[in-house]
């Protein structure tokens, strides 16, 4: 490569690095604040991890712990107090239960539906598909109130069902999988029929394995959206703390008698975010593997 090309590449990288910094900065702040003491956070000093001086934390004492228990290093305090104050493992488990249930049911609904829309010929197919597209245009917030009223009438407010049921039919999932299934050759389905498979067997044994890359893409969308969702759980979980999802849990650290204590708050946010990031990194690797797997010609 010549020097000129290096400069060209350098520009590209410089711009990308700036973009990366802009995206990463909030995460840096989050991690940094979860390690520092309240004074360091408020005076914006101490760099990434702060001085880590052992000290006694007044909010902790005010909550009713002995001074001895409340004396430790800031990073220990932040994470310990976050878990002390709110049942974070419980919230995380709720998050897992809710997002996984939503995703599994979404797949159970979307795959047969997308298969029918992409590969079966029946009267009214175009109409049904246009309704799917139409539903894509409806914002969730527009129908939130009627949905809430319906759940309330059914006595489902403050249950897992309220968190899961409204999301089980994902028109986006149907649309995405339908578009992917359109690219699967008809001959493959005909071959499966000749081999003796029924239509449901074709969906689960032929279409599902070929659709893994698309399904992973959908999984990322679905899981991230519902793991991070604050709006809907806030509506339907009114009092029962046992049903709080992680974003609702973080709210526990806002305001109150002890004012805003950023250290433990950021510590809880880190714990809530880490599973998603780990899941994404794993999925990303499988994602690329999945693309190379489909050696269909």
């Amino acid at each position, binding site marked *: 490569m010549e020097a000129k090309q290096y400069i060209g590449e350098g520009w590209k990288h410089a711009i990308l690095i700036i973009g990366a910094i802009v995206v990463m900065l909030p995460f840096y702040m989050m991690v940094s604040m979860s390690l520092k003491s309240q004074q360091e956070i408020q005076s914006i000093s101490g760099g990434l991890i702060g001085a880590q001086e052992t000290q006694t934390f007044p909010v902790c004492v005010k909550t009713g712990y002995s001074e001895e228990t409340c004396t430790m290093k800031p990073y220990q305090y932040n994470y310990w107090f976050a878990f002390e104050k709110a049942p974070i493992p419980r919230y995380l488990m709720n998050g897992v239960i809710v997002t996984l249930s939503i995703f599994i049911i979404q797949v159970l609904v979307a795959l047969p539906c997308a298969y029918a829309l992409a590969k079966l010929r029946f009267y009214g197919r175009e109409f049904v598909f246009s309704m799917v597209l139409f539903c894509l245009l409806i914002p969730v917030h527009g129908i939130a109130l009627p949905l809430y009223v319906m759940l309330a009438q059914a006595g489902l407010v403050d249950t897992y069902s309220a968190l899961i049921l409204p999301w089980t039919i994902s028109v986006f999932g149907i649309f995405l999988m339908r578009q992917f299934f359109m690219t699967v050759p008809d001959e*493959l389905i*005909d*071959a499966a029929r000749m*081999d*003796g*498979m029924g239509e449901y067997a074709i969906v689960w044994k032929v279409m599902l*394995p070929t659709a893994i890359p698309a399904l992973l893409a959908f999984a990322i969308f679905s899981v991230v959206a519902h793991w991070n969702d604050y709006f809907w759980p806030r509506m339907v979980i009114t009092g029962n703390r046992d049903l709080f999802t992680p974003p609702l849990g973080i709210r526990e650290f806002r305001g109150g008698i002890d004012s805003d204590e950023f250290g433990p708050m950021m510590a809880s946010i880190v714990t809530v975010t880490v599973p998603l990031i780990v899941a994404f990194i794993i999925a990303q690797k499988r994602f690329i593997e999945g693309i190379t*797997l489909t*050696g*269909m010609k």
Partner: protein
Amino acid sequence: MGTISLKNISKSFGSTQVLNNLNVDINDGEFLTLVGPSGCGKSTLLRIIAGLEQQTSGDVLIDNKNVNRVRASERDLAMVFQSYALYPHLTVRRNLETPLRLRDYNAFERLPLIGNFSPSKKEKTESINQLVNKTSETLKISELLDRKPGQLSGGQRQRVALGRAMVREPVAFLMDEPLSNLDAALRVHMRSELSELHNSLKTTFVYVTHDQAEALTMSSRMAVMIDGNLLQLDTPQEVYDNPSSLSVAQFVGSPKINIFKGTADSGGTVGFLNVNLKRKSSESNTDLHIGIRPEHLEITNESNENTFSGTVAYRENLGSDIFFHVNIEDGSNKIIVRGLPQFTHQISNGSSVNIKRVSDKALLFNEAGMRVQFTNA
């Protein structure tokens, strides 16, 4: 047994008529080729036999049983597709096993994990393994069993697709242009392999192709279809020698048959260019198309009332034969003449040649394209 009868089959997609009242009887153990140009409905007909497509009217009978309302999976037919349609996520072994698993295991045994507790499953698995091993040995794909389709070459995928059709020992094989994705040399090789396979299996083959050479070389009978109509159903030799219509004559044979415009006079004497045929046409006082195949014309030094002349426009050397594309003197026709290399190698583009007809080989067709016979006199 493996007889298939098609009775008055018609198929239309919306207002487009694709198949027009077809009647075909396929005998047990026969290699029947459905041949025709693209879009003639031959693949649709095959899909109707398979049960993947429903005919608009008419009946399909397999072993004299009406299967109009029987689903594809229950007709006990196997199909080989143009794109092979192997399951991309399964190994070759699993690809071959799939039709057997679906046939032999019951619903419970097919369940993952708990299906293994079924007492009869082990026995069935063993018989499946044996069948798969036997088939893969026949097709010489034993060493490929653990690969995925993506890691195979075109020819290997072709064999696996054949194997997946064979393991089940169906009443008939349906093949939809299985060789058209292969390169030329492999295609010729696979032709002979398929013929051998047919001889050893003695099962009915229904084979769809647009390549008339495949139809001529492999089939016991061929059905020529054009525009949704069955024009002729006969042995390859008979179709070649004795086409029922002008379209069949033009479709079958490579290079294409030469067509001359001519007339029959009141006595039935057929004349074209400056040549008169010896035999008389059964239709008189009419315009005719006279068809003569390239191998029934030869380049000659003679010049008499049986020859005509032209200029060589293009010379196509195939090694064993040379085909001369000749513009006839009156400018009406461009014809193709076969020459043997040892006699004609010195003829080059642009030279003028005399062409002689081999007697008794002309075919007559009337204006409507139907065959006109010679009188026996």
